[in-house]
Structures are given as structure tokens and as C-alpha cells.
């Protein structure tokens, strides 16, 4: 089980793996472009993280995903402990407690929690054969997802919490939602939303939502990022201002340009042409991931492929909509392209799981 078969290597989806690496390298280019004048050699660090993530992905491939699924209970326990510890021990960075330091590295446990949730949900629904979701099963799944979700909200890291909702929602859609259930869930979400708005959301978070509706209302505060990002993208035009020539990004008008706003740099420096190419590559990547569900040998495999793909798709969509002002600024990175080790690692491992399911489609290996 632990050994990888020669026959299996032939089953690896090399095209998908190639697309992932290609996207990551595109990211390195623009990280370099937006940070080369700063100390810290971000592009080199990102390259190292790509190497680390690739190794992690290959390790994930070596083990049958069913083994991971069977261990998901333990992973879940570990994750909850780690998230709780993060809350207690993490230093406050930019008002949130989401980073823990492991030796030289800094990790964001909430990023890795996404992977664990994929496995946990695969396990929860592996035996679920009814055409539609029962109330009992819904509540059970919500309870399981709720504990880590609350711990992440407490950090507070609303961006990651939202991606959790994507995983939960994806699993529910797959299990089958009746109209009544949809109505109930929407009502519950509304109730939590309104309640959260009045009780839990910090002022700055509320501002981000109101800014979406009217960015000009607060051009120096939370609207600043969106306005500057939109100026960057719009001024890129058809062919862009050229590599390392973006005035918005080079003159530091664009905040967080190597992390959450990397796509704005691409938009400014390579124009619509670059945007089109990157989005096209992303479309190919997502199609390759999603359509792999046909190759899954069992229900757990389908859930893994689907939730992992949805996780990447959700972050991608939210990010490219956020930086152009169609979604509130929630701190969601662009998978593979944004600078950041934890996010890169999580995205690679998620794809590793998809590749894993796909290469073991012929069952009993």
C-alpha cells in the first residue's frame, strides 16, 4: 500500500501537474517584478516553497488516498488542537492570530485545515448513497465542520473561513440538496449573516462590505486597496505596461501586491492579454481537476476531487473578483500565484489528492 507501483506512475496526470507548476512559475515572475526592490528575496523564497510543496505533493501521491481518508479522524483531532494552540500562542500580526512559528518557518495552520476538511468530508459522505441529504446528516456535517470553522473565525481569519464554507457547500451540493433544504440553509445563512454583522464583524470588516457597494465612499481607507488595484488593472490596457514597468505596483501604490493582489500586477504589467492567458490556463487547470470526477473509483474519491477542485476554484474566483472590486476584500490568495508558503503548500496538496484519486482509478492496487 505504501509502495508506489511502476504502473501507477504511468497513471499520474502529468498535464495537470504541468499546469500547476506553470502557474506557480508565472507567479514567481510577478512576485519578482513587484518585490525585487525590497529586501527579502521573495521570489527565491517562493521558489523554495514551490520545491517544498512539490515534494509534499509527491509524498501525497505515494499513499493511497483511502488510507488518508481512514486516518482523517486523527487529522481532524490534530487540526483542532493546532488551531486552538494557534489562538493561544500565535503572535498578533495585523490584528489576527493566524501564524505560528515553527523553527525558521511561519505556518498558517488554517491553510492546512482546508486539506483536513476535504478528507473529513470524504469520510463523512463515503457511505452516503441516498439521492438527497437528510436533516440528520446535514446537522452532523455542520457540527463536524463547525468546530474548526469557529476556531478560524476567532483568529479572526474570515477569508479562510469563507473557503471552508465552499468546501461544506460543495459537499452538500454533491450529496443532494432538496429545494426545502436550500431554502432553510439560505435562511440560516441569512440569520447568521445578519447576526454576525451586528455582533461579530469588526468595524473594518463591515467597511469592506460597504466599500464594495460604494468604494468612492472611503477612498483612503478600505476603499483604497480596491481603487488602487482597479487603477492598476485598468491602466494596463490591452498589452500592459511591460514587465517591471507597472507604475501602480512599482511606485507602491498597490498594497499587498505580491500576495493577495498579485493578479493586479499581472493585469497592469501584461494587460488584458496576460489576464486572458492566465485565466485561460486556470480554466484548463480547473477543468482538468473537476472533470476528473469521472475517473474516481468510489464515492470518497468523487468527494475528494470535487471539494478540492471547488476549493481552488472558489479562491481563484473570489480573488480575481475581489481585486477588481466585485467582491469585498477578504484576504483570499490566488492559489499558485500569490506569494506565501502555507497557501502554496495547501493548494499543491489539494491537487495532490486529486491526482492521487485519479491515478488509482483501477481500484485494488
Amino acid at each position: 500500500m505504501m509502495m508506489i507501483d511502476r504502473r501507477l506512475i504511468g497513471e499520474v496526470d502529468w498535464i495537470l501537474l504541468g499546469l500547476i507548476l506553470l502557474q506557480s512559475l508565472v507567479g514567481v515572475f510577478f512576485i519578482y517584478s513587484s518585490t525585487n526592490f525590497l529586501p527579502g528575496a521573495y521570489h527565491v523564497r517562493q521558489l523554495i516553497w514551490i520545491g517544498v510543496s512539490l515534494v509534499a505533493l509527491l509524498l501525497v501521491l505515494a499513499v493511497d488516498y483511502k488510507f488518508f481518508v481512514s486516518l482523517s479522524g486523527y487529522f481532524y483531532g490534530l487540526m483542532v488542537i493546532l488551531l486552538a494552540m494557534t489562538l493561544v500562542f500565535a503572535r498578533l500580526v495585523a490584528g489576527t492570530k493566524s501564524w505560528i512559528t515553527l523553527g525558521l518557518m511561519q505556518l498558517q495552520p488554517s491553510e492546512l485545515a482546508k486539506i483536513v476538511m476535504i478528507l473529513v468530508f470524504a469520510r463523512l459522505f463515503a457511505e452516503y448513497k441516498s439521492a438527497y441529504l437528510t436533516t440528520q446528516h446535514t446537522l452532523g456535517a455542520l457540527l463536524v465542520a463547525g468546530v474548526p470553522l469557529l476556531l478560524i473565525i476567532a483568529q479572526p481569519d474570515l477569508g479562510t473561513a469563507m473557503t471552508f464554507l465552499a468546501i461544506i457547500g460543495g459537499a452538500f451540493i454533491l450529496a443532494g440538496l432538496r429545494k426545502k433544504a436550500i431554502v432553510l440553509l439560505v435562511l440560516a445563512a441569512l440569520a447568521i449573516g445578519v447576526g454576525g454583522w451586528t455582533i461579530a464583524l469588526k468595524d473594518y470588516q463591515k467597511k469592506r462590505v460597504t466599500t464594495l457597494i460604494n468604494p468612492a465612499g472611503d477612498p483612503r481607507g478600505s476603499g483604497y486597496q480596491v481603487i488602487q488595484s482597479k487603477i492598476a488593472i485598468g491602466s494596463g490596457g490591452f498589452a500592459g505596461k511591460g514587465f517591471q514597468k507597472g507604475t501602480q505596483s512599482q511606485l507602491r501604490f498597490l498594497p499587498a501586491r505580491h500576495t493577495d493582489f498579485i493578479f493586479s500586477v499581472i493585469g497592469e504589467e501584461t494587460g488584458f492579454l496576460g489576464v486572458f492567458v492566465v485565466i485561460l490556463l486556470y480554466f484548463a487547470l480547473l477543468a482538468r481537476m473537476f472533470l476528473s470526477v469521472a475517473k474516481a473509483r468510489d464515492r470518497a474519491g468523487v468527494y475528494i476531487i470535487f471539494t478540492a477542485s471547488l476549493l481552488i476554484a472558489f479562491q481563484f474566483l473570489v480573488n480575481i473578483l475581489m481585486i477588481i472590486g466585485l467582491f469585498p476584500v477578504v484576504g483570499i490568495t490566488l492559489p499558485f500565484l500569490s506569494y506565501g508558503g502555507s497557501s502554496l503548500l495547501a493548494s499543491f496538496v489539494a491537487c495532490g489528492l486529486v491526482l492521487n484519486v485519479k491515478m488509482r482509478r483501477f481500484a485494488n492496487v
Partner: protein
Amino acid sequence: MPENRIYEDLSLVQRRANTVFWIVAAMIFLALSYYWKVQILEHKKYQGLAEANRTRMRVLPAPRGLIRDRKGGILADNRASFKVSLVRENVKDEASSHAAICRLLGIDEPTLRGRIDLHKDLQPFEPIIIADGLGPDDVAPIESRRLELPELVVESEPQRFYPGRGLAAHVLGYLQEQTPEEVLARPNRKVRPGEMVGKTGVEREYNDVLRGDDGKVYEVVDSLGRVHGTTPATQNPIQGGDIFLTIDRDLQAEAERSLEGREGVVVALDPGTGRVLALASSPTYDPNRFITRFTPKEWIALMSDPDSPLENRAIRGLYAPGSIFKLVMSMGGLGSGMITESTTVYCSGSIQIYGATRHCWFAPGHGAMDLSDAIKNSCNIYFYTLGRRMGIDTIAQAASLLGLGRKTGVDLVGEKEGLVPSEGWKRKTLKTPWYPGETISVAIGQGQLQVTPMQIAAMTAMIAERGKRFRPHLIGGALEPPAVAEEPPASGTMSRFTPAEYEGVIAGMWRSVNEGGTGQGAKVADFDACGKTGSTQTMSRESAERLKRAGREVKTHSWFSGFAPRVNPKIVVTVLVEFGGGGGTTAAPVAVRLFDLYKKDLATKLEATK
């Protein structure tokens, strides 16, 4: 999982997954169309915005609140000044730019470079302050060369100014620039790099009140960083809150004058409230001399001065209390029931204790002494005998009840606790047993005993108030805490002293000043002062006696601590003069100057109310 799963019908879930994918695909297409709209259709608009409309935020620093004395006199003010900042992004040629800047501002290149390095993590468009505290004449040549040097920004800035020069310097403290590291270490505090923050004293203790809220102005700049006007969305700075101190400027000035040329401390308190009326620590310094962000030579000289003028000796100087400690012995003796006011001890000038001969400071001997005689004459033999009876732990308890060995809680950072030795303390820290002979040294305030002048002042205030203890504080006005007597922490068998016991000790203190005792130098007509002197050896008793025999003068630290009047006390004065000689001859006259001034002040106030 059983192997037959491979034959499971997964078509339903797979169909649903495919549906979701196509929804995602549709959204990607919509997103792409929006990018088309922004990048192609609206390109001109955004290009214009990128070229011309660059706005930047500039901070308008809030003036700090004023610090006033109890009568409203200004101790810390603000004055207009200019600062010059460098915007690295606008530097065209580093070498020639730096040379020109150094010439204009009269600074040397290494200083400039060091300054830039300190703030290298700031964004290149963020200004780095390279000179401050400038007058209009200093910045005129820079203003006139604005076009040649777009990298320089001249801004006005309110600067701290202490009109009294060194007056109450140790109370007020001083400001220093917040370094980038300090800002990072406390991300929650709304302090920006380059801001001047209180580092010691009241400036630090009440920094949050004094600092106010910075304003903001948004400037439209072009690609060269030239300002093309401000947007209306500005936020005006809000000056920090003024604070009133309990300090009396006249008393403070008198206290500082009386210490001029000497090293020492004067603390004056209002015993009924704990208000600090004067706190002088000498030598002192003029905080105006180094109020800039740049470390001039004077600052370095102050830091390395062996007389440590920056130290606030009143709360950080540790001294042996000497004969002042006889007040603690007296209270403890009465409180523990070892003596009564009428217990007498015969002083023949020397005594044999634990196999060693100990001398009284008055070689012929004082004769038969009761408690108030012993305090009046500061008789060592009496207190040697009392110390032997009490034992070190009872002494330590009495000292603790009077607030020694712990902070007084005055609102200044860095206060020291001092030390009251005990058997347990010695076993724990020095790992050696307590020797009875050490008790005898402690009985006259020597040995390992260490106190701060503030502790002695607070203790004297507690005696003056017959046991009521008010936390000494500097903050007055609206922020002043209500005067509530503090409960001393219970220690051992003595829980608190009775008013009668205080009266017994006060009787001795009154006689010391008014009936020709050691404190007679502190006598003030019609002000009924009570006090106790002290002279503490700054070396071991043996070497001091040896030097004395050799005819060499041994200067001791001199203490006086007292209050006036005896009934309804109004003021406590504690004086310590380092190497001042006898407490009666050096420290007591300093106290007289303050008693006198305060008496006159009270008289004029009385006059005014009539």
C-alpha cells in the same frame, strides 16, 4: 472498504459535480468579460487616474497636551518648529543629493546615512525625518531650493518645550523618538514611526493622555512627488489633553535651588492626600537640550556621566536610612510591646553587645533615656538595646507596616523597592544564616537596609497622619484618584499601629526639632515642625572609625525627614544630601527652606480666603 465499491453507481454525484463545474466556468467567463470592460473599454479613464491622480496621506502631528503645576503654571509647553524629511523615491542621484542635503542642513554624511538605514524598512515614498527642531531661518534656504531638491519635504511640527529649563526634569521625564522596532513590537498602539513619545516620568506615565490624535491630510502628487493640492477629506489633529500635576512650582524651584551644586533629593508631600508637592533630584539636566530626534553629544555625555543626572534619585536611588530608621524601631518597639514610652535605657557612651563594643555617636553618653529622649538625641545605645530585644524579624515586620521594602506606587516608572533584610530573606538569597550582630547594625539603619527617599517621605507622611497612608502621586486635576487610605498588607503578629503609638513617636520627633535635639536645624517659628535626622555611613563602621582616628574627615550621607505642623500636618519634607555630612547640619536647613516657603504660602492663602 470492501472491493465491490468499484461497481458502485456514482453517476448521480458525478453529474452534479459537472454541473457545478460549468457554473464555475460561466463565472470565470463573466469575470473575464468584466476585465475586458475595465482594461479595454475603460482603459483611458484608468490610465488618466494612474498618471495624474496619485494621492498620498500625510500625517499632521497632534500637539501634546500641556503639563501644568497645581496652580496652573506651565511646566511643559509646545512651540512651533520645522522638520525636514527625505523621500527616497524622489532622489535622482544619491551621492549628489546627499552632499547637497548635508550642506544645507549642516549635518555630516554618516549621520544622514545612519538615519536612512534606521528607517530602511519604510516604503520609499514614506518620508524619513532627517532634521527637526528647526526655526524658520533654518528652513528658508531649503524652501528656496524646492525645485532642485524634490526629495526634501519641510513640515511644521509642534515641539515640546520646557519653559522652566531643568525645572522638575525628573518628574516630567523626556521624549524620545519611537523607533520602527518599537512600533512593530506593539502593533495595537496607534503610534507611528518617528513620533516622539514619553520615555520617563510623567511624559511616559501619561503618554496616552498627552499625545492626542494625529490628523491626516491627503495630497495629490504627480509622478515626481510634487504636491498639487490637498483633498477636502482631511482630518484635523486633536491636541492631547492637558494634565495638572500636584507639583507646586515655587516649592519645586526652592527644592532645586537648595540642592544646587550637591547630589541629593528633596521630596515634599501633602500627607493627607499623598500629593507630591516637590520632587527634586540633583544633579539635573535641561530636557530642552535634547528634545530632537538626533542624539547630540550632550545626550551621550549625560548618559555616561558618573553622577547619573538622568537618574531620578527620589525613586531609584537606594540608600541606607541611617538614624531615620530609628522611627521604624520606635514604632515597632511600641507596637510589639517590647517597650513603652517610659521604658528607659542608660547610655554611657558605649555598650557591649554580642561580644563587641558599640559606641554611641555622642561619646560622653546621653545618660538615662526614655523613648522620646532617645529619638530627640538619636541615641544609638537605646536602639541597640531595643534591636536586641526585638530581633530582626519583628524589625522587618515594623518596616513593612510602614511601607519599606516595597514600591510606594507613585505614578512614575522605574521605582525601586529597596530592601528590608530578614532571616528568611538572608537564607533564601545569600544562603547563610542571620547573625545577631547584623540585627544591631539594622537597628540604627545600617547593614543591608536600603530605602528610597520616596519611601521615607511616604513613611513620614504615614506617621504624620497617625497611621493613614495615602499613595504618593503626581497627577492632579480631573485625573487625580480619590484620596483613599491604603491598607498595609498584614505581616506577622503586628497588624497595625495605634494612634497612641504614633503620638509617642511624634513627641520624640517634635522634641528633636524644637527642644534642641539633633533636628533643631529644622526649627521654624510658629510652624511646629517634627522630624528626624540621619547620617549614614557610606563605608563599613570599622574603616570609618579607622579614618577618623587618622584625622581624616568622613563625609556621611545626610538625611532629614519631617512634617509640620504637629497637629493637622500640611507638609512632609524629606531631604537626602549625598556626602553631606551630619543630617542635622546639612539636610535639616534644606527642609527649613521648604517649610518656610510653604508656611508663607498657606498664610497668603488664608489671607485670600478672608
